[in-house]
């Protein structure tokens, strides 16, 4: 935080000014974030007639149902599998792409240009980017054609599209940018003199990576992780489309529940997911003060 430009204000007046500035934000977030969450929380305790009608009340039936179903465990395991795989791939690719741009591209302008090249697809439609894998991964897609062509395989691989592999590919394709940007930002702040000093002191390439670059990119990695984990855990359409209906995640099951008007069960499962997500995010936030980090 920067020192205030008008320090002569009394604390109460400066509190008031702060609240005035953020009041429009609060006026949007309260009805469209806080209230919907509370509605879902409330709905999870309601009873239902099975046709979308909700009876206000307090029953834990939905939670019992969700927690007792063997499906829940399966869904969470599937979701965690997708999350971990996506996280590992986006982290490794994102880290080294950022590292390349910051430490290897000599021309600053070129580095910015290449950085923008990576970010442009972020501003285009995710759904379109997802379906764009169909002509590549499909049974008659380019990859199968190429593999058949060079004689590596005799039968087209069916595992490429509408499988867990396709789901992970689509996630990595969409989400690596969420790793690149924060890691790039924290790496760009590393003073190059520090690295020169380390080299003078006899550090190897690996030492520099281990002792300087990775620790100093920690906050970027944490921020990227929050984005990737929360998006994958909250996603349903990639799983639904790219697995061809073969796999499900917590939220895609939620979507099906809503489709058949099972609001309380869906709400209970959503509340559980939100709790898991909050736990993960706050665990990450303990390692890094993102507010400090972002405003620095």
């Amino acid at each position, binding site marked *: 935080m920067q020192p205030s430009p008008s320090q002569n204000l009394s604390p109460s007046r400066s509190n008031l000014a702060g609240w005035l500035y953020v009041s429009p934000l609060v006026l949007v977030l309260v009805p469209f974030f806080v209230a*919907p969450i509370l509605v879902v929380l409330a709905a999870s305790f309601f009873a239902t007639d099975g046709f979308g009608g909700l009876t206000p009340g307090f029953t834990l039936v939905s939670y019992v149902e969700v927690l007792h179903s063997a499906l829940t465990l399966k869904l969470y395991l599937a979701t965690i599998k997708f999350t971990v795989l996506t996280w590992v791939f986006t982290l490794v690719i994102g880290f080294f792409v950022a590292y390349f741009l910051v430490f290897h591209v000599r021309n600053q302008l070129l580095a910015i240009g290449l950085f923008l090249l990576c970010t442009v697809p972020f501003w285009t439609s995710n759904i379109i980017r997802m379906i764009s894998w169909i002509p590549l991964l499909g049974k008659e897609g380019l990859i199968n054609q190429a593999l058949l062509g060079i004689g590596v395989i005799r039968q087209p691989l069916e595992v490429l599209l509408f499988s867990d592999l396709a789901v992970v590919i689509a996630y990595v394709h969409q989400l690596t940018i969420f790793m690149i940007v924060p890691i790039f930002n924290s790496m760009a702040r590393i003073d190059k003199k520090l690295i020169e000093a380390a080299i003078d002191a006899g550090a190897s390439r690996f030492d520099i990576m281990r002792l300087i670059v990775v620790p100093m990119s920690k906050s970027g990695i944490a921020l990227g992780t929050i984005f990737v984990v929360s998006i994958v855990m909250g996603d349903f359409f990639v799983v639904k489309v790219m697995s061809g209906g073969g796999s499900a995640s917590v939220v895609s099951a939620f979507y099906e529940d809503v489709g058949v008007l099972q609001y309380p069960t869906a709400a209970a499962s959503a509340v559980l997911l939100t709790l898991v997500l909050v736990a993960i995010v706050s665990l990450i936030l303990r390692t890094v003060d993102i507010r400090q980090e972002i405003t620095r």
Partner: protein
Amino acid sequence: MSAVLAEMPEAVAPATTKAIAPSKGGRPWTFYVLASLFAAYVIALYGPMFCIYILSFQDIRGGLVFPMKGHSLHWFVDLFTQVRTGDVKGSFDRSIKLAVIVTVITVVVSFLAGLGFRKRFRGDTVVFYMMIGSLVAPGLVLGLGTGLLFQALGLNASWYSSALGAQLSWTLPFGVLVMFAVMSRFNHVWEEAAYDLGASRWQSIRLVMIPVLAPGLVAVALFGFTLSYDEFARSLQTAGSLNTLPLEIWSMTLNVTSPSLYALGTVTTIVSFIVIGASLGSIVLIQKKRGSSAKG
């Protein structure tokens, strides 16, 4: 991302020979490894997208995979004239209108919040974490909550009320985070100077802050527009009876198996590219104008 742009002119590192990547002389082997990784990443990022752009220009025999069958604009015409593909034109109109409204609100509210968050005030952490919560909450769950809330209040869900709010709960946190990055590079001395010269608070905002922060505000607008234009999960339960474009694409992925799906992808990506190009272009233009007037 805008922060990186804003940083551009000042951060030119002095030439050095002692670094992981010396700025003079030969390249280390790691350069070639990482450059290949980067190239592979960019190809994987753009390759699939270009496949569907190319495939959307097939003629009437066209299918979902290569090889390309003829060249024509058949599927684009099909897209806008066929009834079975749904109301593409109407949803396109709505999405653009909605994105413009979201952009305006996002820029104004994020700018004000950015001003507010420069100083600590009582309760600022609550607002900050409310914002982070809104960012990481599963979109579909928030959308359902908003939909149920409108239902409970007896309001009709529609793209310009409930979907507008649901999208703002997604674009505003991004906008404010970008504002944080932009504000952290704003030298408060300029603002102090304005006050010293007798400017009022409003004058200092209008005559000093807005012009200085213009590139950052354009970046916020870019986020607002594209995130709204491509938003899907939060709109699904809140858009009411009339679809926005991503919802239209979603229903097409489930029941249309002709290249008109790709044609729609091409059309919506062209719109995204125009918006991205215009935004980045105007940021560069502002920077350039500033550079030349500073020299003159």
